[in-house]
């Protein structure tokens, strides 16, 4: 089920929340689990089996690890659990990619290694719930989390509907105990949840989905466009992906909050970042911290000297790129971020911080501008269908130097694109204020709150693109 549909907004969400509060505490987990199963089976019911398999593996692994007194056995259980979870991910997400590359390679070196492709669709949100599941097993292995003995509650930890298909990728310490807590209805908490949902829905259907129409055409017809139009396409995609994914996250956090659950923040105004490092502390926070805790730090983090630190960061970004999708475009996207980060280590701080600029405001804006454009450049790889498309786009962006606004040739109204660019810029300037206002606990019925909420609802109805556009991150 999609968050941006009538079924979710006016049937599923109100019903699940209402019944949740009406039920006695001891039955609530059953209700939530049932609702989550229904939510997920809206996509392809058969994929529930894969989810159940992952749950059974990691639930059993957690208990076996905790019950075992032998460190070697504990390690074996952990490895078995990680390998089987990663295997699931490999089969569904990476097998065909690996097979295609082996076939290409065999053609290139004139060998006959034909690997057959399999016709299989990626279960929605597989990368998210497998990572959440892995997080649990690793925490149990490290002794930071007790193994969950209640199979239903553990299943709910993996399947909790708000964050089931696109995160935030939660940690067991933050979520598991909340399923045992008795949540009572608080007006302030509920209204904050609703505000978050409205803001998330606004970002998705008003900003991201309307921009989607334009970026699709620009990225599919880059050959015909001039550098300004191509830059505009990349700029709009940067805003689209932010609004799409942070919109989903806000709706997830908001819908959970309405039932009294606290999920971790996933975005914190990433485009105000003044360095790539800061960007990654603000963008997809739950994934960044996952990689930091379970890959970067175990590899040695920044403790083993500058060279090793840089290498560790490059590994993490490469894996992060690969996590996003089985395509070289995502790997290059990750590699680019790794490269940006590494270069940062070798440029003197004075230069990097623009110390030669005296005015702090200009210094800050210059940093933000550079970071935003580096991120924008990398998004071209993320959005392109293939590496060839991405290179073609970049080549045209730097070689077709003119401002022809060739939008009409690709079926777009020039004035429409310019209005959307204006709206995107306006959104960037107002994002911080609204982000902070929405998260402040306040009375829903204060005049300011009523006006902002009414404007959001009105814009969602009138300007929302109601065409069941999937969230970009669902494909991961």
């Amino acid at each position, binding site marked *: 089920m999609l968050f941006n549909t*009538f079924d979710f907004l006016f049937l599923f969400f109100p019903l699940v929340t209402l019944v949740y509060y009406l039920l006695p505490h001891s039955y609530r987990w059953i209700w939530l689990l049932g609702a989550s199963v229904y939510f997920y089976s809206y996509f392809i019911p058969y994929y529930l089996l894969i989810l159940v398999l992952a749950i059974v593996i990691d639930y059993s692994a957690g208990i076996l690890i905790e019950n075992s007194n032998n460190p070697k056995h504990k390690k074996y259980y952990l490895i078995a659990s990680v390998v089987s979870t990663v295997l699931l991910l490999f089969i569904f997400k990476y097998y065909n990619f690996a097979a295609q590359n082996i076939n290409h390679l065999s053609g290139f070196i004139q060998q006959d290694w034909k690997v057959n492709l399999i016709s299989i669709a990626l279960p929605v949100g597989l990368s998210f719930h497998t990572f959440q599941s892995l997080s649990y097993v690793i925490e149990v292995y490290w002794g930071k989390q007790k193994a969950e003995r209640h199979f239903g509650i553990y299943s709910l930890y993996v399947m909790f509907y708000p964050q089931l298909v696109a995160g935030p990728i939660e940690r067991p310490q933050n979520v598991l105990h909340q399923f045992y807590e008795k949540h009572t209805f608080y007006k302030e908490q509920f209204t904050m949840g609703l505000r978050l949902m409205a803001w998330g829905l606004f970002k998705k259907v008003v900003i991201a989905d*309307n921009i989607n*129409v334009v970026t699709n055409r620009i990225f599919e017809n880059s050959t015909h466009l001039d550098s300004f139009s191509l830059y505009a396409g990349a700029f709009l995609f940067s805003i689209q992906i932010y609004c799409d994914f942070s919109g989903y996250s806000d709706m997830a956090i908001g819908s959970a909050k309405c039932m009294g659950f606290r999920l971790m923040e996933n975005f914190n105004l990433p485009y105000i970042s003044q360095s790539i490092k800061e960007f990654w502390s603000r963008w997809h926070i739950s994934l960044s911290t996952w990689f930091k805790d379970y890959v970067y730090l175990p590899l040695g983090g920044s403790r083993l000297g500058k060279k090793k630190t840089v290498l560790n960061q490059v590994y993490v970004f490469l894996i992060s790129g690969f996590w996003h999708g089985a395509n070289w475009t995502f790997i290059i996207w990750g590699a680019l971020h790794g490269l940006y980060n590494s270069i940062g280590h070798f440029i003197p701080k004075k230069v990097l911080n623009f110390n030669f600029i005296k005015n702090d405001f200009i210094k800050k804006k210059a940093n933000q501008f550079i970071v935003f454009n580096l991120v924008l450049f990398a998004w071209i790889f993320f959005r392109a269908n293939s590496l060839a498309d991405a290179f073609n786009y970049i080549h045209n962006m730097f070689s077709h130097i003119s401002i022809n606004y060739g939008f009409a040739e690709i079926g777009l*109204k020039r*004035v*429409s694109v310019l*209005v*959307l660019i204006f*709206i995107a810029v306006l959104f960037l300037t107002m994002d911080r204020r609204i982000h902070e206002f929405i998260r402040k606990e306040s009375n*829903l*019925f204060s005049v300011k709150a*009523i*006006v902002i*909420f*009414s*404007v959001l*609802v*009105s*814009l969602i*109805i*009138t*300007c*929302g*693109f*109601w*065409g069941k556009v999937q969230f970009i991150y669902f494909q991961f």
Partner: protein
Amino acid sequence: MFKNISSYIIIQILVFLLIITCLSSIKVRGIRVWFLINENVILEGGQTKLMFDDLENFKPHENAIFVIGSSHAYRGYDPRIFKNAGIELFNMGTSGQNMKDSYTLVKTNRSKIHNLIVDIYPGVLETVSEESTVMLIQNANETQTAFEILKNNFTINSFNNMAARLFDIKPKPMFFDEKYIYNGYVETDTYFKSDTGSTYENFTPGGNFKYLDSILNFASNNSIKVWLATHPLKWNESYKNFYKNSYLPQVQKILSKYPDIDFFDFTFSHSNNDSLFSDANHLNQRGVNYYNTMLLEKLK
């Protein structure tokens, strides 16, 4: 609490009206900003507008035939060919018209319709799309008809288009660069270039079958003579299998309730001759001549 909720609802309505007024009145280069931001709010105009203008002035005889359906209809039934055979024809087809909207059109024009061709093919019976709903709402000559269409297919997009229609003071029809003939017909003179065949493989009968049934039922209760028809389509073996095994049984199931209704199915009446088509889905004028001649033979 009740006072708070009441004041919220009142402010919400006022803000909503204010926003609609702004979106409808603020223009950039002569186009209302609402159309620039939201692609689902469409401009009035095109074939649908011209069809409704003609419909207003159309005074049909007893033997006049109306056609309903999607672009297959408005590109597939030429009133000039029918006129030469002594039959008046009016094409009420609109782009992506679903059976729900067709049903509303038949009901709202009941007084004019005595004979009706319902143009069907798998695509139009599979999904209830909003494409025709928003177009009809923007272009229907009578606001009451627009309301009727909105009522029968209420979605946020159709609601927005109704609001845009009501707030539109000076409509400016959108540019239409195709060859509109008259009585709803659009002539296509291009030729199909590659041989891809049709791509349907799985057929999920959606809500449209229910409305096809409603149209046939309404016609039978109101003494309207009805025929179902499908014009020639590009096909390949897999499409043929799908058509005969998955799609056709569903149509025959409905038709079994109406023994007096004939179904003129010309889908495979040709040897995949590209020169009859403008694309994989539509006939060009040569194809229309071929099809309409065959159809007229059957109608006689």
